[in-house]
């Protein structure tokens, strides 16, 4: 199965389970969790179900296109459901069936793997899902985000798209998998990997990124003071990306590191509080009007 078929099948499956098909966030992020459709939507009492692909950037993982498994830019397929359905593990297993995997013929295990993001003030507990020994999914019940204890609890399911495609095709290099029939991942992306790796490790102007970090941080604060949650959050994400570039470039001294992470976390925490306050001021508009369960158009009751 090629990469795009995988994306289409996962999208179709989760849409059938009542997820809104979100689109990738248009600011650089290190993981799908940082998309506002996860980080902000897990906050507060309103129900939420979404699925989306999120291209993610991790400059420090750059290997100049030389390593068959490591990428700066990779893609995650992210599912968030709040509250987590009782049968979410079954729904997940069914998503594998939708990809043509018969769980009866494979070894499927949920092994403990908890998740923590110091920059987001967030953590969750859950598992890595192993299919025949391969980690194909991160499965997390969010417990806290932006320093706020969450209730109800959101489940986050993250499929690593490149790895999953490689595994299903039993390819040894990510660059050999097919993105679309007749087009390989390498043809689509290999030169990008070389360039972003070289940029992050060798070319990035550290003093520019340092300045950008400071100014993005200040701008985020200004937005928060003006009561603008999403712009503030966008600038917090830009800070996080600036930090990742500086880190890859080796420009964050060990002593500074803790301090810089704290500065990003403070923004994330302020954004989270401001988001909850803003939703509350709007009367939590997505709360069901009656005591009925959250709106669903799914077949999960079937």
């Amino acid at each position, binding site marked *: 199965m090629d990469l795009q078929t995988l994306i289409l099948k996962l999208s179709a499956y989760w849409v059938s389970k009542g997820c809104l098909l979100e689109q990738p966030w248009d600011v650089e992020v290190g993981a799908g969790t940082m998309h506002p459709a996860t980080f902000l939507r897990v906050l507060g009492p309103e129900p939420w179900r979404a699925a989306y692909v999120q291209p993610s950037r991790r400059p420090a993982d750059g*290997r100049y296109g*030389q*390593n*068959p*498994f*490591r990428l700066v830019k990779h893609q995650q397929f992210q599912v968030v459901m709040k*509250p*987590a359905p*009782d049968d979410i*593990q*079954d729904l997940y*297993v069914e998503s594998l069936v939708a990809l043509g995997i018969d*769980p*009866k*013929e*494979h*070894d*499927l*295990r*949920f*092994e*403990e793997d*908890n998740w923590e993001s110091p920059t987001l003030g967030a953590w969750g*507990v859950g*598992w890595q899902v192993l*299919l*025949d*020994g*391969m980690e194909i999914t991160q499965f997390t*019940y969010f*417990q806290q985000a932006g320093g706020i*204890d*969450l*209730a*109800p*609890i959101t489940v986050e399911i993250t499929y690593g798209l490149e790895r999953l495609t*490689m*595994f299903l095709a*039993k390819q*040894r290099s990510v660059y050999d998998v097919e993105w679309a029939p007749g087009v390989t991942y390498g043809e689509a992306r290999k030169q990008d990997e070389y360039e972003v790796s070289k940029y992050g490790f060798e070319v990035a102007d550290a003093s520019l990124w340092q300045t950008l970090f400071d100014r993005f941080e200040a701008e985020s604060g200004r937005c928060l003071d003006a009561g603008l949650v999403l712009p503030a959050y966008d600038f917090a994400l830009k800070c996080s990306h600036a930090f990742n570039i500086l880190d890859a470039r*080796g420009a964050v*001294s*060990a*002593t500074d*590191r*803790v301090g810089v992470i704290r500065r990003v976390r403070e923004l994330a925490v302020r954004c989270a509080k401001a988001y909850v306050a803003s939703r509350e001021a709007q009367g939590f508009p997505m709360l069901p009007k009656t005591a009925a369960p959250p709106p669903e158009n799914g077949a999960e009751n079937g």
Partner: protein
Amino acid sequence: MAEFLFEILAEEIPAGILPAAREDLLARVSAAFADARLGGTLTVYSTSRRLALVGEGVADQQPDAESEVTGPPASVGYDTDGNPTKAAIGFAKAQGVTVEDLRVATLPKGPYVVARKVTPGRPAGEVIGEILPALVEKMTFPRMMRWGDGTPQWIRPVHSVLALLDGLVIPMHLFGVESGRTTFGHRTLAPGRIVTMGVADWFQKLRAAHVEPDLAVRRARFQEQAQSLASEVGGEPADDAALLDTWAHLVESPGVVRGSFDPDFLALPEEILVTSMREHQKMLPVRSSGTLAAHFLAACDQIADPKGLIARGNQWVTEARFSDARFFWDDDGRTRLEDRLPRLGKLQFQETLGDYLRKTGRIQDLAEKLAARLGLSHLDGVLVRAARLMKADLVTDMVREFPDLQGVVGGLYARRDGEEEEVWQALYDQYRPASADDSMPRGDVGCVVALADRLDTLTGLFGLGLAPTGSKDPYALRRAALGVVRILLDRKWRLDLPAASADAAALHGALPRQRDEMLKELSAFFLERLRFLLEKKGHASDVVEAVLTTDCPDLADAEERVEAVEAMRKEQDFLPLAAAFKRMQNILAQSPVAPGGIGEPDPAKMTDDAEKALAGDYLQAKGMLDDLVAKRRYKDALSIMASMGPALDRFFTEVHVMAEDPEVKANRIALLRSMRDQFVRVARFSEIRG
């Protein structure tokens, strides 16, 4: 008598907490059954998704319980004619008994009206249904999870609760889930609902649904399969009891698949392949005639792999990991360790103590100082080289990928860089011994740099006031100190440890803690580890105490003294010596040292025969004792001391130490003090229990 069955079906419970969770559940519920007078014998079962208890011989009904409730004083409860007053009548009514059931009991505070009450026993099911939910809901785990609306909190969400007493459902709610007689089979092989009538039925139906509830059975099955799959390819599974335990906790249906990998990977260092398999993939490597074979054994939660899909998947992952490792091995190889040093300047060791480059510099200086103290200065060249390179592997991709292999990777890279054997081995072994049972660095060089590294860490963090407290030891300082002690004992190195610690502390410059005070605390910390190790080696705790309460700057010497005292203790004349020492100690405790100090005992001033005899024995032996102690021939020194037992006994029987004549008295005290000080160079015998 009834049989009891209780099963919680949850989402996958972390393998790491299952051992403790099993114990905890069993202990809590057994104690509660005993308290509730239900008796019975409980056994715990578990799988990756279940915690269960099976009880035999549980009472159907609690026995009646008798109790007495104290009411008003007798003088208030009865009038002078012995008739019950309103107070007694009211009390009886409140207690639900008749006035005739009251009696007067003589309590410590006087005569009181008491009501004798019989609480009728209740049906066991009712009682269990009441007590069980709270017991389970109050279990705690290192990392709790909330789910649903955010209220329930346990290790993972609970899906079904099965609770039966003699086949009848015990009604209860656990985290809002109502109990019943249903459970579910294996997640992928037999996910359907199972209706259970009792214990035997539960076992049988679960097993039919590919769930083996017995941990020991799963483990044995894993072991058998691993053994037979390995022998099919002429090998043996690596001996790893801990991994088999983990496997058994990870599944409901134990299966093993064997896979192979491209033998070209065997060109990579074995350490890396094994770590990748064990730590990253939880696989058992296969060995054949001592060397690693190009096979692996992987656990799975499956009965069979007829199409070989599971083996193929695991093989793909293994080769992917190995290719990754080969990439790091080749890529890291382009930069010599030497050339990585500048990057250590960007890697923080500790906020105040600075980066790893600075730490490396301190380790070099300290290694030379240690070598001078140990008479190993001829090794200075290799020591400095090893110290200089020892942390460079922290900035390699391989260590980033395999943190457990820090040190080992440095050693392998140093060997490839063409460093001398003593140097690369020192790097390789630098974190040994990592525990009380781990192996030692191979040579002197490895031991010296391992000591220097740990002394630097310990004095630095103690200097910052970051010594471990209680169970909190984030910098693993206990392990570091244990490493220091084990190396010194193992090499039998005569090192003045407080002085070496002071060398290490001086290299940090000024730190918040006052240095002498900190060093004292650190010495005590080392002695604690030494005590633990000596007792672990089987030495009696009082003998260890007798030596460790003396001055012990040299730990290897302390161990020799413990061994000598221990050996001597078995001899007949030892106990009288210990008793005599105690008497000396008691007398000296009452005799404060005079301002002029204590002189040497003067035989000319001795008046009593017993005194002269003892002084004669002692003064004659003193030179020999000095010599023996200096040569650390402690057993010989001890037998000479013991030979003075009879003279000491006679002295204490016949001589009054606290003589009227102050000079005579002072001379006698001087004799005892001199002897005591001599003895204490080996041990403080007063600590020895008879």
